[in-house]
């Protein structure tokens, strides 16, 4: 059976890519405003928790982790990996069109390759079918169901 995802599940996958990219960006921006944290200035970590960018970043990463766990409950890890990598593409595109940074040819090539990887995996089955006997997640089988006894 070829597992196909519902539109709602594709939205969760998109949320994973977007929230991981935006969460990291907000955290990085917030920490650059807070300054360098070292052993002598550990109290800066508490100051960081009051920074609006850090708070937004943490909230986005909480949404990312929740979506990631939900997705792992219905797709394979190897199906999900390119979706998380697509966050790098979103960061690159944001830097080009939002921050008006220059994207080199190698970066455009990277974007193209990761997009191809996502398309390639998305066209295949999202989850491996395990037979009951080989299911690595199945618990110990109830012997009364499978062993009718010797000589019957």
């Amino acid at each position, binding site marked *: 059976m070829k597992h196909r995802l519902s539109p709602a599940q594709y939205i969760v996958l998109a949320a994973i890519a977007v929230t991981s990219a935006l969460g990291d960006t907000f955290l990085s921006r917030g920490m650059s405003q807070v300054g360098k944290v070292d052993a002598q200035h550990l109290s800066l970590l508490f100051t960081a928790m009051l920074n609006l960018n850090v708070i937004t970043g943490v909230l986005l990463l909480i949404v990312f982790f929740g979506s990631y766990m939900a997705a792992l409950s*219905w797709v*394979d*890890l*190897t199906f999900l*990996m390119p979706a998380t990598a697509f966050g790098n593409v979103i960061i690159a595109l944001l830097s080009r069109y939002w921050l008006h940074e220059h994207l080199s040819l190698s*970066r455009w090539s*990277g974007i193209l390759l990761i997009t191809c*990887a996502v398309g390639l995996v998305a066209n295949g089955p999202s989850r*491996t079918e395990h037979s009951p006997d080989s299911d690595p*997640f199945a618990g110990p089988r109830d012997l009364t169901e499978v062993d009718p006894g010797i000589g019957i």
Partner: protein
Amino acid sequence: MIHTATQLLAWTSIAVVAILAIAGEVLIARAMHTVGDLDAIMARSGLRGASAAVISSPVFLLGILCMALNFFAMLYTLSRVDLSLAMPGVASFTYVGNAIAARIFLKENVDRRRWIAVSCVCVGVFLLTK
């Protein structure tokens, strides 16, 4: 000699970060497969029931421990290794390692299509950091 030792330390710390990330992701994936469809659990017993189902899994907690150690190992690595080397190095090792670990420990069907995708992601991440 010093240069060789520095290189060895850099690659060892990159490998440790990647191994912890792989262990964490595989353990969390295994826990979530065991728990079952979270959407269905939430529909049945709400957010509290779904959270309880996830948090009561020892495999999930072990995975979270690995991810926490991965975070601190990454901080150490970034204090010793340039970001331009650490980021693509860790990402590439993690993507390839995850594919191998998913095949061995999660019995996932990592077919040719997924291997090509993993290779594209590794090269793509490397090119993005250039």
